């Protein structure tokens, strides 16, 4: 298989914890097409799944919904951009923070993992019909 240097793929998922395995499968499928090492692929899949989990947990507060979220993975000239679009509650950027890492308790690690793995995390107001647009970016050397 020829490794690709440019990618742009997107998929919709029902906003549900049951979709997280599909989010991981989609991410793995996309990164299989790129010549980067397996450890980095695993980290990127984790970051994407954590961001999707945050949509389920926080934007929708775990409520059952038929709404879908969209994930778009783009790679262009070594710049990886992962976009998340949802129609949940507007994200209050001031409240998006991970817990202090030495205050050991369950929860609050997902955002920490995302920040550890990615170079930048940006929240934007989504363009209609979306409410939230999260952008994760990372420079990829391949």
């Amino acid at each position, binding site marked *: 298989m020829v490794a690709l240097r440019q990618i742009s793929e997107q998929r919709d998922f029902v906003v549900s914890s049951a979709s997280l395995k599909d989010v991981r499968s989609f991410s793995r499928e996309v990164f299989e097409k790129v010549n980067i090492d397996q*450890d980095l692929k695993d980290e990127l899949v984790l970051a994407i799944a954590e961001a999707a*989990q945050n949509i389920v947990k926080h934007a929708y507060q775990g409520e059952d919904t038929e709404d879908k979220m969209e994930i778009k993975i783009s790679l262009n000239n070594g710049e990886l951009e992962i976009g998340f679009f949802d129609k949940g509650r507007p994200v209050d950027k001031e409240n998006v923070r991970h817990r202090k890492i030495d205050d*050991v308790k369950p929860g609050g*690690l*997902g955002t920490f*993992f995302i920040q550890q793995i990615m170079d930048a995390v940006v929240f934007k107001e989504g363009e209609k019909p979306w409410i939230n647009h999260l952008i994760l970016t990372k420079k990829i050397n391949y």
Partner: protein
Amino acid sequence: MSYKVTEEGDVSIVHLDGEIDMDVTEKAKEIIMPLIEAKKEVHLNLKEVQYMDSSGISVLIESHQKANELGKKVILKDISKSVLKVIMMAKLEQILNLG
């Protein structure tokens, strides 16, 4: 995620298998917590866990803390490479009992 529980004396060994994410954390807690509450030492065998996210890590923390409260231990055994990496990313390798 699938699981198998075996008993060796006062030790309950929980073999977890598959991917542990937010979708299965309640099930994981339902398996592990009663064993801790029964004041058993619990060994979590993570050899066959190929993926764990922050929700899975929360189950490990909650189990560890519950066992500490009861004067017992939860020991993580045969940790797969991918799970160990996430434990280290969370800076928990000195906090959880890795055996």
